């Protein structure tokens, strides 16, 4: 018996003029799993993530989150429904400290940002919640540092923290290791590994070592279509995948 999927994509199509970016894509992300989406450059990974996130509308097909159809929802509505996201290019609040970043995310999650009287940054409840977020990714000890001063790797981790702060049921991580050195890359992989079982994760990643280390299941996207889904062993043994993708990497 399989459990109900957290995220279910069914028959998703998207084209830009003559270019078909997403071709009848269906797959499921199960509770607590790390599901990796891989594919060669230009396979349409980001286009697919944009549709799940709500930044692009699919031409056809449906996206269900915890059984609820979210295909027509806006980005903020999807986030509140349970989709968290980190971006390919670091996307944190540069003008604020790490702690302030987390406080703003925490007040957003609580849904009471329309308050005009009490100061946000000295609110004990918000600060406590913010520290909880930062502890999950190991940034609590540098809470007072401005986001602007952070090294690239720390900034990526802060972004992951902000995505987690919305208490998502599925986390979309769009190349979380992009541009980080080997050390930061390992740090990030360890954090993602620790999240396994707490939240379902859809991980888009180029680094095959990371993917094979982290992913419970892998879906392979080639020219907009999913050609295989399975465990790391199944995927590395799959002939179609070898031909289309792994083959050209040697």
């Amino acid at each position, binding site marked *: 018996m399989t459990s109900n999927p957290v995220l279910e994509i069914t028959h998703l199509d998207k084209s830009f003029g003559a270019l078909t970016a997403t071709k009848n894509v269906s797959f499921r992300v199960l509770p607590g799993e790390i599901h990796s989406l891989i594919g060669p450059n230009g396979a349409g990974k980001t286009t697919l993530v944009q549709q799940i996130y709500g930044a692009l509308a699919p031409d056809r097909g449906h996206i269900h989150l915890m059984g609820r159809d979210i295909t027509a929802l*806006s*980005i*903020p509505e999807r*986030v*509140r429904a349970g989709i*968290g*996201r980190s*971006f390919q290019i670091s*996307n*944190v*609040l*540069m*003008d*604020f400290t790490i702690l*302030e970043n987390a*406080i*703003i*995310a925490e*007040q*957003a*999650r609580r*849904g*009471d*940002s*329309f*308050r*005009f*009287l*009490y*100061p*946000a*940054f000295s*609110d004990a409840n918000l600060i406590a919640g913010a520290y909880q977020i930062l502890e999950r990714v190991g940034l609590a000890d540098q809470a007072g540092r401005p986001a602007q001063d952070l090294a690239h790797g720390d900034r990526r981790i802060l972004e992951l923290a*902000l*995505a987690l*702060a*919305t208490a998502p049921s599925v986390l979309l991580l769009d190349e979380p290791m992009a541009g980080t050195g080997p050390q930061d890359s390992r740090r990030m992989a360890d954090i993602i590994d620790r999240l396994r079982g707490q939240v379902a994760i859809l991980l888009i990643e180029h680094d095959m070592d990371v993917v094979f280390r982290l992913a419970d299941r892998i879906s392979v996207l080639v020219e907009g279509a999913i050609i295989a889904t399975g465990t790391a062993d199944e995927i590395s043994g799959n002939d179609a995948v070898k031909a289309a993708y792994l083959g050209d990497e040697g």
Partner: protein
Amino acid sequence: MLGYCLDLMRLGRDGIRDNRLLWLLIAGFGLFPIFTHFADLPFWNDVAMRIMLLGMAAMGLNLVLGYGGMVSFGHAAFIGIGAYCVGISQFYGITNGWAHLLFSLVACGIAGLVIGYLALRTSGIYFIMITLAFAQMLFFLFVSLETYGGDDGMSIDRADFGVVDLYDPLRLYFLIWICLALVGLALMFIVRSRFGVTLRAIKSNESRVEAMGLVPLRFKITGYVISAVICGLAGALFASWQEYVSPDIMHWTRSGELMIIIILGGLATLAGPLLGAIVFLLLEEMLPWLLAVVAPAYAENWMILFGPILIMVVMFGRGGLVGLLDRWRAANKAGRLMP
């Protein structure tokens, strides 16, 4: 209830401590008439009122421009709407000042909501242009309304606030002063609040705020309406101060003036717009006089000096005058700590 009030008073006290410069300036305006009385310079009360009014409007615009990162080039329109609400109500025989204020604030709130709702769908240069376009539309609307004086505007009486007769000396001065202090107090609470923090976060990175599950447009429109209402209040008082309303009050150059005042004083600071208004209007007042003494032949061309001074402050004083003051204080402190 009592606990709540005590809480607010504590927050207010903390806020005043954190924004000493703003409250020093406001206190200075409160004491200024004593100086003009003993120095026998009643004309300067008039200058001070003008500074407070433009400073108040600039503080309102700063919520949008500085804290929210929305470059609105049409805020003079709200000053104009506020002022015309006073003029038009008097035209129809309504002399009650409280009613004037109510009309001004409500009208500016509605205008801010409509303009904000439409203009905030754009950003960057388009937003600047569309806010300017709305302001110009309103400007020419009032130019074309012959009933209300058209181009020439109309003379009005100072509003009637019941117990207070604004024609008594200094009554209008202190009405403006109280409004300025209230605006300062309100903004002080707003920018630290969850709403204010969210507005600043949107300026910093709108797509991240969206990814947190918030709808940025709602916060931007709310900020826009608040700032429009503050400019409307300044406009209504402006009308009483001038005893005259004309489309000139909402000329596009005034929108520019407000922006220069904010940038001169310091974007996204509470004291900046007020300090900027003081320096801007004092320069405007003093430069011609100074030049008349030093180089009489050029006294009319005081703007030749005015422009470069503004450009220098903007170029070399990052963070405007408030930024300069902060750095100067930090340097002093560092100097004192040296062995």
